[in-house]
Structures are given as C-alpha cells and as structure tokens.
C-alpha cells in the first residue's frame, strides 16, 4: 500500500512538470491555433540563460524571475518576427517553422553552452527535506513544484476569464476579423500568447533542471512528448485540462509500470509508447480531450 502511495506521489511530481509544459503548449494553441513543436527546446534554451545568470553571480530566485521575463520578451519577439509571416497560411508551413525552431534552438543550446555536466541550481531551490506520511516520503521540492504549477493555472484561468486582456486574447484567437473591428490589436494578442507560453515554458525548464538533473541540452525531448500527451488528454484548448492531463499521465505511467509485475507485459520500457497511445486514443475517440469542448465542423 505504501508503495502504491509512493508511486502516486512520484507520479504527481513528474506529472507537474509535464503539466507545466503542457500549459505552455495549450496557451499558444489557444491564442494562435498553432501547436508549437519547439516549446521544449525553447524551455531548455531559457533555462540555460538562467544558468548563465547564476554563473555570473545573480541569485537563483533573481535569475528565475529575470529568465521568465526574458523568455516572455523572447516569445513575443519570436512571434512578431518569425511566426507572423506564416500565420494564416497552410498548417504545414507553421508546423515546419516550429520544427525549424526546434532544430535551431537545440543546436544553439549545444553550441553556446556545450556538453558539460552541470546541475542547476547548484543548490536546491527548495529544501531537500521530506515529510514522512505513514511511510511515504513527500519531498518539499516536489510539493513546491506542484504548488507553483497549480498557482500558474489559477492565475491563467483568472486572466482568461476575468480580465479584459484575457477576453481580448480569447477573441483574437476565435475570430480575428471581428475582433479587429471592435478594436482588439489582434497582432499583439498573438504575440502575447507566445510570450506567455514562453514564460511558462521557462518555468517548466527550470523545474525540470531541478527535479531531473543534470541540465543538458536534450533534457526536454522526452518531456515534450509527455506534455503533448497531457495537453491532448486534457484538451488542447483548456489550461485546466493541461494540469489534469499532466498529473493524470504522470500517475498513470508510474502505476502501469509498477504493477506490470503482475501483468508480465514488460511495460517498464514502454513509457513513450503509452504516451503515444494516449495521444492517439484521445484524438480518435474524443479530440476535444477530457475538458475541452467538442467542436462540430459543419460542411
């Protein structure tokens, strides 16, 4: 029983990271209709920027905040300069562009920061201590990450539902032409979406470096797939869905693998295929995901 609980706890921990990156993916999709394949690499890149700041003497939390801001600015710049020209064009072109960014950012991270093994942060961001709850160890770091993730989604929910800016963001995504007519600066709304997503992605990257060291240029590659699965599971349009999807996926993967000893299906090697199965099943059976609204396309 304790093992079950421990695996659930560990699943929630890894799931929070999937959820955070999934959140970034959802934000961009919701505000621009684009699935950004480069989200993970962007997160890695910004995490390296944070490392550089700390390496030059900035304190961890200062670097954290600064990196989030830099990522935001970077996301806005990316959208305005690189993505804008192809928005509204064929889907394939945009997919190609984000894949180009994926390759480019991966290459840049390797080029600038090279292959050394480094941990980030050098000291733990949250205390390493754990609480023992009936034999189950719950680390403060994991709890902290989960807390921040939930906090982010609450903030975003409030932003989208209760602020004028959020309304403008949603309008620009749903119906750009009509939004322009009522005075929404659609172009800047799209850029804002990218900026927000990049900032959230930076947080995901910083968490990953802390929870699954070391910091290396490839660290977000598998996380990207899990994040896609989480976003699809929860609903590509739903920030809350991203969190639900992420946590559920994290727990599901851990439990399946743990209880495989009874099933003898050797599933412990199949984490990624299981994620793929989740993506495929959801897209076929209920494309809107658990929390998205089903969209009916009339021809």
């Amino acid at each position, binding site marked *: 029983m304790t093992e079950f609980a421990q695996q659930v706890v560990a699943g929630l921990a890894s799931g929070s990271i999937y959820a955070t990156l999934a959140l970034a993916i959802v934000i961009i999709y919701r505000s621009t209709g684009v699935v950004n394949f480069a989200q993970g690499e962007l997160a890695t890149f910004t995490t390296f920027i944070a490392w550089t700041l700390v390496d030059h003497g900035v304190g961890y939390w200062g670097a954290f905040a600064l990196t989030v801001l830099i990522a935001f600015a970077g996301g806005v710049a990316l959208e305005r300069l690189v993505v804008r020209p192809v928005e509204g064009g064929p889907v394939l072109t945009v997919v190609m562009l984000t894949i180009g960014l994926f*390759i480019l950012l991966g290459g840049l991270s390797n080029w600038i920061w090279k292959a050394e093994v480094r941990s980030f942060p050098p000291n733990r961001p949250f205390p390493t201590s754990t609480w023992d709850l009936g034999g189950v160890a719950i680390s403060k770091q994991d709890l902290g990450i989960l807390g921040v993730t939930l906090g982010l989604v609450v903030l975003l929910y409030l932003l989208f539902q209760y602020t004028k800016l959020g309304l403008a963001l949603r309008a620009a995504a749903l119906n750009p032409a009509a939004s322009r007519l009522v005075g929404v600066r659609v172009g800047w709304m799209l850029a804002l979406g990218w900026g927000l997503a990049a900032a959230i992605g930076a947080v995901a990257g910083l968490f990953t470096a802390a929870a699954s060291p070391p910091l290396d240029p490839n660290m977000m590659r598998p996380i990207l797939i899990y994040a896609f699965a989480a976003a699809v599971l929860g609903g590509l349009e739903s920030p809350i869905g991203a969190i639900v999807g992420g946590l559920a996926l994290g727990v599901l993967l851990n439990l399946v693998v743990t209880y495989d000893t009874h099933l003898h299906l050797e599933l412990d090697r199949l984490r990624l295929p299981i994620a793929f199965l989740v993506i495929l099943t959801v897209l076929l059976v209920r494309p809107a995901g658990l929390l998205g609204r089903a969209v009916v396309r009339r021809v």
Partner: protein
Amino acid sequence: MSRLATVRGVATALALAAGVVAIFLAPRWVSDIKLAQMGVYFIALLGLNIVTGYTGQISLGHSAFMAIGGYTTAILVVDHGVRDLWTIPLAGLVAGVAGFLVGLPALRLSGLYLALATFGLAVAMPDLLRWDKLESVTKGGQAIQLFNSPALTGKGFENVDLLGHSVTFTRAVDYLTWTVALVLLVVAWLLLRGGPGRAFRAVRDSEVAATSSGVNIAAYKTLAFAISAAYAGIAGSLLVIAVAFADPQSFPAKLSLTLLVGVVVAGLGSLWGVLAGAAFIQFLPDVAVHFSKAQGVPDTVYGAALILIVLVLPTGVAGGAHRILMPLTSRLYTRS
C-alpha cells in the same frame, strides 16, 4: 497542347538519361556511402511527398515506416537467409500494409492532430522495437548484424560482380539504391500523372469539392498513406543493407523531422524538387561543419536554413525554380 506534351516528354526522357549517367559519374566526387544515404532519403522523400505534398496529410511518422521496412529486411536476411534484393519489395509491402493501417485512423485526424499523432508514433517506435515481448521477432534492443551474412550481397565487405565488373560493396549499394530510386521515381511520376494523382490533388485542394465530384476521399487518402509508407519501407530496407546493420536507434524520431525538412525544401507536390531536398538534408550538415567544428553548429545552420526557406521560399526549391524558369517556358504554353 501536343507541342507542350512532346517537349515535356523529351525533357523527361533526357532528364532520366541524365540521371542514369549521373549515378555512374557521381561517385568520382562524392563518397559512395553518402551518395547511398542520399538515395535512401530521396526514396523516403518521394513517398512523403505523395502523402503530404499531394494529399496534404502531414506525417511526422515516416521514420517508423522506415524502421518497419528496415527490420523486415534485417530479419529476413539474418534469420531466414532471404537474399537481400528480394527483401526490398517485401519490406515495401510490409511497410505499405502498416501505412494502410495507420492511414485508416488518420482519416479522422486533420492537420495538426495528425502531425501530433504521427510524431508520437515516430517517438514510440524505437521503444516498441526494444519491447521484450516482441523479442522473438525484433531481437529486443540488440542489434541485428547483417555483416557476413551469406544472404547479403557481398556479405557487407566483399567486392560484388556487376555485369562483369568488380565493384566494392559500398559502390554496389550506391548503384542499387539509385537504381531503385530511379524506378520508384518513374512509378511515382506515372501514378501522379494519372488518375490517382488528380484525385490526390483534388483531396488536397478541397475535400468538399472532391467529394462532390465523386472522388472517394477515404480510399485515396489511405492509398496515399500506404504508398508513401511502402516507399519509406523500401528506403529503410536499403539503409539497413548499406550499413549491414539494424537496431532501434537507426530510426530515431529525429529522422522523421529531417524528412519533413527535405520535403518542404523540395517544394510540396513536386517530384523534381525532391532531388534538391535529398541533397539538402544529406549535405547541409557537411557544409555546416565548415563554418565551425563546434558542437551544435550543424543543427543551428540546419534549423536557420529551414526557417529561412519556410519564410522566404515557401514553395521550396521546385517553386523557386518554377518561378525562374517560367518566363523561359511561357512561350510553350499555347492558348488552345
């Protein structure tokens, strides 16, 4: 119109002849091994172009079909002693069936969703190949060595007798790959020039209009998937023959992305651009290394070049060439 058709026919025949000559001359300047790999890319790109360029279905999963074809060849050669040449069409067949099976659910997914799902497939495939439960078929995570296998032409290192000439193994592989490539190019060309090609283009341009005109969308979309998967399977098979080696890591997800790069550089819906696309993905990393030997530079140039092409030349090399050549050929367009 008939004058145009004649010119086109002559141009095509000349191009094919030039292609055959090029296959023999190229190894003088470029390594056999790299040429063979470029040929593998070329075939895979032909296939990908059919499904993505012609019917507009984005597939990021073609590395998985290459893996299926490659493993088919490896298993047949090593476990069953089937001559490698005969495994090539078999690999295409198996991969084609897989493509058909993927194409069916793909009917219900569009655009981005299809890209996502096929990307997931590409990422999952290496792990599936490592799965213990499939070990009796795929040997789990272990490599399959075709080297020294009697069923492999030249056993991987010996010289091969080709029409009375003795050529090295790698040279023979190079010739084999490009011969198959040329044949598949002609097949694709015939296919796309005829009924299926028109149906594919109709599906891409407007599914609504196509259905109204009586085109069976589902059939053609799945057909496109199957054919393109078969091409990828043959490419995978040739890859395995070339390195005399197969393992799950030979077909990583990144390969799917690389293929998509090639197809966009080529220009979607164009067969001739595919040659430029294959050359791009094969040789750009080699060129990038001249800028700097530091790690990550090739990828950086690769990604930057891709982004630039997408922004500046969205119709790819073929589109660009078309734009340049059109004024020259406009005189051939008669009004009737």
